[in-house]
């Protein structure tokens, strides 16, 4: 029986009922039935036992339920605690993970583009963090999309590139890791043959190792290399590519691989080679033409020289009138032919771009005046006046090309004379503008001639053109004169134009850009001073006659016979020079080349050496240098170069080698006469004195002012010193040895000071002060005066106190 029920029954019932209630219930049922108790009491008696059984069952059931529930509760509690612990652990791990997420999100915010626009505290709450991460993911996806788009772009570009270029990629050792189809196609390899192979596979061995050393040096330094490379196909054929090799760098900026982009230029190379060959051929042809022209120049001028010279000699002999007329015609024709030849050669040079414009110092007014002297004679002969009109503000000393200026002016004037029957030729020079040391000179040659119709005015500056085809027949000429002038003026940064009224005359204008130099050589300006300005040139007299070759005038023998060494290889020139010099009373010894001259020089005391430049065995430059080396100290024999190109480099080379002057070839008889006279006698007739009209007067005056005894004592040493210093000055300038030039100029200054030559001292001072800025003309001017002094001091001829 259930303990609770048993206890309850014991408390309510006495023994024996309490000890065995079912038995007691059974006894009660029997008692009630036997005593015929009322029916409901009998019913109670029957049910009481069953009731107790059910109560006990309920108790037992409740105990069981309670026990199971208690146990369930305990187990559940334990499980819940364990779960709680597990959850706490999970929570902590989750919070740590969230913290990591926050820091990750924070990092992403600052690395992803456009992500920083989110709130700074967005990640503080979990919801915010989720939102932030969602945002970041969106950004990342957008970023990915951009990257994909970029990747697509890149793929497209790569596709495009592959269509165009030969592409390969190599690692740092040159092992090929990628090759596109074009690469395989052109090289003739299958891809599997190429991949993994070294790039040397396609080397042609055409390029030297230094070529590849440069290539590798460039790309290893992270720079892009470009070049043209000859590569070799598998079948041994070569092909050319234009290659660009780009180092692809890693995150650290170090090259990690190289990509080579090439285009096939084999055809272009082939074309280039053919072009190169064609160009070589053309250049060779052009060179041959130039050589031909140069040779022709020499070859034609030399016989022309002979004709003119010999005709001159013949005209100096006794002739009957007919013979003289014939020979005069020969000589005029030869002169005209020489002019034409010079025109053609000049034009050829200009067209070949070989004509050089000099930049040397010169006296502008003097140069114009000198040019006009010879023109004046020709104008006078035709009965025309030549009017010179030089503006007062023209700069004195300028830098430019005086020879070409003279050429243009002479040409324009000759044209004016040619096309003018009567009236005057007016030459005007004006300053057209000046800025700092740059000036522009405007020269005009006006005539009163036939004029040029407007429609022809443009044509006349073109080559081989005259205003009218009939003009050539009527007036002669090559038609090249104005074309040459146009080009020369252009080369001198100027322009040329004309205005003309037919029947009244023409004016030809041209401008020149010149550099203005500070005034110098005052001693040379002085005698010219009164000559400057406006006025008619001397229209008659000796000067005019001497300046032109068209007038017959017997050249007188020089006062003193000189010992002359002529160094000349050309037979005609030899004969011409020897005849002329002998005719003028000099003793001429011939050396056929430089070596003979060097050998002959020490054998006698020479007054002048005429030195040709180009000769077999030894040229003039080398010969002069050797002669100067062999000369005893204090002795200085004048050496005159005979050169066809007395300008620029040639002259510098002559002076640097120790020559004193030059004589243009072909030989002009009067120039030769004048030059010899200069070295022969200081008191030569004025008409044949050299161009720089230094005049003897100031020198003679200075010398006269000196103490005669002192002059006598100093005479020899001064001559030696002056000549030596002058030669040294040329040498120093030629060798750009400014220190020596400075020292020599200092010596000259002292020596000239001793002689009382104030103007020349100033020139020496200028050279001493700025040796490197010394123009050749300054040295020339000084040398000219020095020679005059030396001549004046000559024991035989000079002004001595004994005189």
């Amino acid at each position, binding site marked *: 029986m259930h303990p609770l029920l048993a206890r309850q029954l014991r408390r309510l019932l006495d023994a024996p009922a309490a000890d065995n209630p079912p038995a007691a219930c059974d006894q009660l049922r029997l008692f009630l039935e036997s005593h015929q108790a009322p029916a409901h009491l009998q019913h109670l008696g029957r049910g009481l036992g069953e009731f107790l059984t059910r109560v006990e069952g309920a108790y037992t059931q409740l105990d069981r339920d309670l026990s*199971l529930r208690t146990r*369930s509760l305990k187990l559940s509690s334990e499980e819940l605690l364990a*779960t709680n612990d597990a959850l706490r652990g999970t929570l902590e791990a989750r919070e740590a993970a969230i913290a990591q997420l926050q820091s990750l999100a924070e990092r992403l915010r600052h690395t992803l583009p456009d992500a920083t626009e989110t709130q700074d505290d967005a990640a503080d709450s979990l919801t915010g963090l989720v939102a932030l991460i969602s945002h970041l993911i969106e950004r990342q996806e957008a970023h990915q999309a951009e990257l994909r788009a970029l990747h697509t772009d890149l793929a497209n570009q790569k596709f495009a590139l592959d269509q165009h270029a030969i592409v390969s990629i190599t690692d740092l050792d040159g092992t090929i890791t990628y090759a596109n189809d074009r690469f395989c196609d052109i090289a003739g390899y299958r891809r599997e043959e190429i991949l993994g192979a070294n790039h040397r596979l396609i080397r042609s061995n055409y390029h030297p190792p230094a070529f590849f050393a440069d290539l590798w040096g460039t790309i290893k330094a992270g720079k892009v290399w470009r070049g043209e490379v000859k590569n070799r196909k598998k079948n041994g054929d070569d092909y050319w590519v234009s290659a660009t090799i780009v180092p692809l760098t890693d995150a650290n900026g170090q090259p990690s691989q190289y990509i080579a982009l090439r285009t096939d230029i084999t055809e272009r190379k082939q074309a280039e080679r053919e072009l190169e060959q064609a160009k070589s051929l053309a250049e060779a042809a052009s060179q041959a033409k130039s050589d031909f022209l140069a040779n022709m120049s020499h070859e034609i001028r030399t016989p022309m020289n002979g004709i003119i010279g010999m005709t001159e000699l013949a005209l100096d002999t006794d002739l009957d009138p007919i013979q003289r007329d014939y020979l005069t015609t020969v000589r005029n024709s030869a002169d005209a032919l020489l002019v034409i030849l010079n025109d053609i050669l000049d034009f050829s040079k200009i067209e070949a771009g070989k004509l050089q414009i000099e930049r040397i110092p010169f006296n502008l007014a003097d140069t114009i005046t000198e040019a006009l002297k010879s023109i004046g004679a020709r104008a006078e002969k035709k009965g025309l006046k030549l009017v010179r009109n030089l503006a007062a503000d023209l700069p004195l000393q300028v830098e430019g090309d005086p020879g070409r200026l003279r050429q243009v002016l002479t040409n324009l004037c000759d044209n004016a004379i040619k096309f003018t029957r009567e009236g005057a030729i007016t030459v005007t020079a004006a300053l057209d503008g000046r800025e700092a040391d740059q000036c522009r000179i405007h020269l005009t040659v006006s005539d009163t001639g036939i004029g040029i119709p407007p429609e022809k005015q443009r044509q006349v500056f073109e080559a081989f053109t005259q205003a009218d085809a009939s003009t050539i027949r009527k007036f002669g000429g090559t038609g090249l004169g104005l074309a040459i002038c146009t080009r020369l003026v252009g080369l001198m940064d100027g322009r040329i134009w004309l205005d003309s009224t037919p029947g009244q005359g023409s004016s030809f204008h041209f401008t020149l850009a010149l550099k203005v130099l500070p005034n110098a050589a005052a001693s040379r300006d002085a005698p010219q001073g009164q000559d400057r300005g406006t006025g008619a040139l001397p229209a008659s007299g000796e000067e005019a006659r001497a300046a032109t070759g068209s007038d017959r005038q017997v050249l007188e023998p020089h006062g003193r016979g000189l010992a002359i060494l002529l160094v000349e290889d050309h037979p005609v020139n030899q004969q011409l020079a020897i005849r002329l010099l002998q005719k003028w009373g000099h003793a001429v010894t011939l050396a056929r080349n430089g070596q003979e001259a060097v050998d002959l020089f020490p054998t006698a005391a020479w007054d002048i050496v005429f030195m040709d430049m180009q000769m077999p065995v030894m040229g003039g430059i080398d010969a002069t240098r050797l002669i100067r080396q062999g000369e005893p100290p204090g002795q200085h024999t004048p050496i005159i170069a005979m050169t066809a190109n007395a300008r620029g480099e040639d002259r510098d080379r002559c002076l640097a080698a120790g020559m004193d002057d030059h004589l243009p070839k072909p030989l002009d008889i009067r120039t030769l006469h004048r030059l010899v006279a200069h070295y022969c006698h200081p008191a030569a007739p004025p008409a044949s004195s050299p161009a720089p009209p230094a005049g003897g007067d100031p020198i003679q005056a200075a010398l006269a002012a000196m103490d005669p005894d002192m002059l006598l004592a100093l005479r020899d040493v001064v001559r030696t010193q002056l000549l030596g210093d002058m030669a040294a000055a040329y040498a120093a300038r030629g060798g750009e040895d400014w220190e020596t030039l400075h020292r020599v100029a200092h010596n000259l200054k002292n020596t000239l000071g001793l002689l009382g030559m104030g103007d020349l001292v100033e020139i020496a001072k200028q050279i001493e002060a700025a040796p490197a800025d010394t123009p050749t003309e300054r040295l020339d001017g000084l040398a000219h005066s020095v020679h005059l002094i030396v001549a004046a001091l000559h024991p035989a001829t000079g002004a001595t106190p004994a005189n």
Partner: protein
Amino acid sequence: MKTQQIQISDLGELAPALATLADPAAAQLALVFGSRQLLGEPGLFREIKAACPKAILLGCSTAGEITRRGLAEDTAVVTFAQFDQVELTVATTDLASMEDSLAAGQRLGTQLQASGPRALILFGQGLAINGSALIDGLHQVLGDGITITGGLAGDGDHFQETLVMTPDGPSTTAIVALGLSGAALRFNHGSFGGWEPFGNLRKMTKAVGNVLYELDGKPALDIYKAYLGDYAKDLPSSGLFFPFEMLDANRGTTGIIRTILSVDEAEGSLTLAGDVNPAGYLQLMHASTDQLISGAEAAATAAQAMAPHPGEGLGILVSCVGRRLVMGYRVDEEIEAVGDILGEDTVLTGFYSYGELSPSAPGAPCLLQNQTMTIIWIAEAP
């Protein structure tokens, strides 16, 4: 609709009881629930069949018979019904083995298909049967629209052999299904347990069919024994105290409760009264007697709520043997509670079973239930 009921505790009482019936030959249906001993008596079938030759005779053995008077043991309750308009069909098949369950359902469905029943009342043997598969087989043939109810036969608290009464007599292997059709049919049902979940959800980590091996990676039997404590020695019958509720893979409730039928000490496994979803979760449940009675009331209320009931009806109560063991002497109280709700004019019959067949809610598919009070309430519209 007319109903009459007799209850006997001995075969000798049958003839006098039948004699008390009014016009038994008119009966169309004779529902028989009784102990395995009585149901196995050949005379029982023969005498009832003789009394009402037109009636469809079906039923099964029980773990306790139900009438309005409450629970009875070792009796047989026979309820006769006569319908005015409702049409009945019956189908029977033999279940060759547990694996035959699905096919058996299909066979029954095929037999019933022609009559187009709206509802089924099905009885099957209660030990070697896969009730879930059986129901699947029926739905496959008859569609999801049909309402399937019923129960699995019981064998007291012996769990040894069950019988099914078919129109051809009792059978240990047969499954019988009654099809009901006709516009006048009123077919209400309700099913509720009254159990309460406790403790943690437990993930099934190893389960095959209706055998549960592991929960949360541990042997299922170990967990189970921990909760039973001293009562573990009474396994498997003490397993009825802690049935499982099945939850799906998302931990959602399914309304299905699984009872422990047997244990395997060597494997540490539990054999459940029905398949489990191996991907799902299980939760231990328990209940007090009062809660179970309230559960039975809830089932009756649900059945009543489906439709108002016109006049006389028949209530077939299929309650779980587990409930009976838990409630002990107080099991009558759940029957009284249902009877009070269904009303005096409803005749009650039924039995304590080894498995209830019913939708969890109106319109839902039929499921094999455990630990519920399942009510099938039929009537005929006037």
